[in-house]
Structure formats: structure tokens, C-alpha cells
């Protein structure tokens, strides 16, 4: 059995999930901090 499709599948899944986690966390952080800054500036 050729092992490489399983190896590449596992690596691709890990990279995509990690990038998705980091990207999602970063976007949520930027959005929340922008809202907090805007709320702080409101008199």
C-alpha cells in the first residue's frame, strides 16, 4: 500500500486546521478590539 496519500492528507489537514484556528482567532480579536476602541472613544 502506498503510504504517501495518507501522510500528505494528515499534513494538509493539520496545516489547514491550524491556519483556520489562527486566522479565525485573529479576525475575532481584531473585530472585538476595534469595537472596544470605538466604545472607549464614545463620550
Amino acid at each position, binding site marked *: 500500500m502506498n503510504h504517501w496519500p495518507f*501522510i500528505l492528507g*494528515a499534513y494538509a489537514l493539520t496545516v489547514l486546521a*491550524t491556519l483556520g484556528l*489562527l486566522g479565525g482567532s485573529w479576525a*475575532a*480579536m481584531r473585530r472585538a478590539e476595534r*469595537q472596544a476602541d470605538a466604545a472607549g472613544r464614545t463620550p
Partner: protein
Amino acid sequence: MPGPGKGKLGFDAAHRSAKQTPDPMHAFANPARFLKIARPLTGWLGWTGALLAVGALAAGLFASPSDYLQGESVRIMYVHVPAAWLGMAGWSGIAAASAMQLIWRHPLAAVAARALAVPGAVFAALCLATGSLWGRPTWGTYWEWDGRMTSMLVLLFLYLGHIALGSADRERGGEGRVTALFGLVGAINLPVIHYSVVWWNTLHQGQSISFVRASSSIAPEMLWPLLAAALGFSLLFASAVLMRMRAELARLKVEARLRRMASE
């Protein structure tokens, strides 16, 4: 319940009390002090972790040798083991934060526990998926209901339960005590996962690295990429947790501000 002009987790009270209590555990109870450290640390952890992880994965794919028994499929170890370690480390963090929330009422503990849940669930799911992809060419099956795999699946369900409980609690405006209790009780699954390969006759292989005995049955040319991958993904995990904590603190700040405006 918080009074007018006060955050749900005592956002403002924490600011005041941290000035009066300089003990080490409460030194970072002040969100402003925590954020002063978390902001530069987020990027530093993320970029260092990315460099380490990319280098380790490249070494795992192209430089490390294949195994005499498992062949090329052993390369899946460089993504599977860090995912398993982080899946378990994430719940250990949730349990520690839950204890800090319930016993010492640390104002950042609930924020930390909530921030750990999604990254922990992602890595627990990755552990199961990569393990399944490793199992097919090695054992001839994607899945077996053995002790290690089943207890890891239970951990993923615990994470999903924690995320759902935390979200429901946040919508109700609660203090998150039930979620914290769930985090503590769920930690009972961690020794079950760890010792499953000892207690039961499992298809999953036994422990290859022991930090307690400082011993390893893995060849050094395989061990170093594995440790680098574990460290790299751990730094990325920590960066994601800090981002999620910063997002949660910003959200609490907006809520505290809106409450103050409503009471004026």
C-alpha cells in the same frame, strides 16, 4: 451579579484589587496589566511557533528516516503526537483555570478557560483524524473502539460540551460556575487517556517517550523533529489562546461600557 458600572467578571473591580494585592497569582488579575504583556507576546509566540512548526514538518516529511516496521507512515507521527499532546494540554489548562475560578475567583480564569476550549477541540479532532489516517496503512483500519481512541473521542465530546455550556452561560449572563465545574470533572478523562495503553490491551502502541524517566525508545533523528513540532504547535496554540483571551476581554470591556452608559 455585577452592579452598575462594573464588568461581568468584575472588570473594573479587578483593576482596583490588583493594585492592592501584589501576590504573584493575582498580579495578572488586572486585565490592563495582562494585556500589556499579551499584546507583544501574541505575535512573538505565533511567528516563532510558525517557524518551528514549518521546519519540523519539513524535517518530518523529507529529512527523517522511515520506520523499519511501519515504513513511511511513521511520518504522520510529527503531526499526530503534537495534536494529541495539545488536545490533552488544553483540557489540563481548562481544569487549572476552572480551579482558579472556583477556589480563588481569579477574574481572568473564566476568560482563559473559554479561550482554551476551541483550540483544544481543534487539536483533539486533529489527533483523531491524523490517527485514523495513520491507522489505515498501519493497522488496516481507520477506526477501532480501543481504550486510547475511545477516550480521545470522549475528550472531543467534552470539549464540545464545554463550548456549548460556556456559550449558553455567556448568553444568560452567568458567572460560569457550572462550566468551571464541568471543566474540573472532565479532567478525570485525562489519566484514562494517558494510561489506556497500560490498563487495556489496545491496538494503539504504548508510550515511547517518558519525561518522568527522561527516556525515549525513538531514534534521535526522529525524536528531534518530533520535539520541535510539539514545541512549534504549542507556541501556535498559546498564540491562538492569547488572541481569544484578548477578544473576550475586549468584548467584556464593551459590555461594561454599555452597562455603565445604561445606568447613567
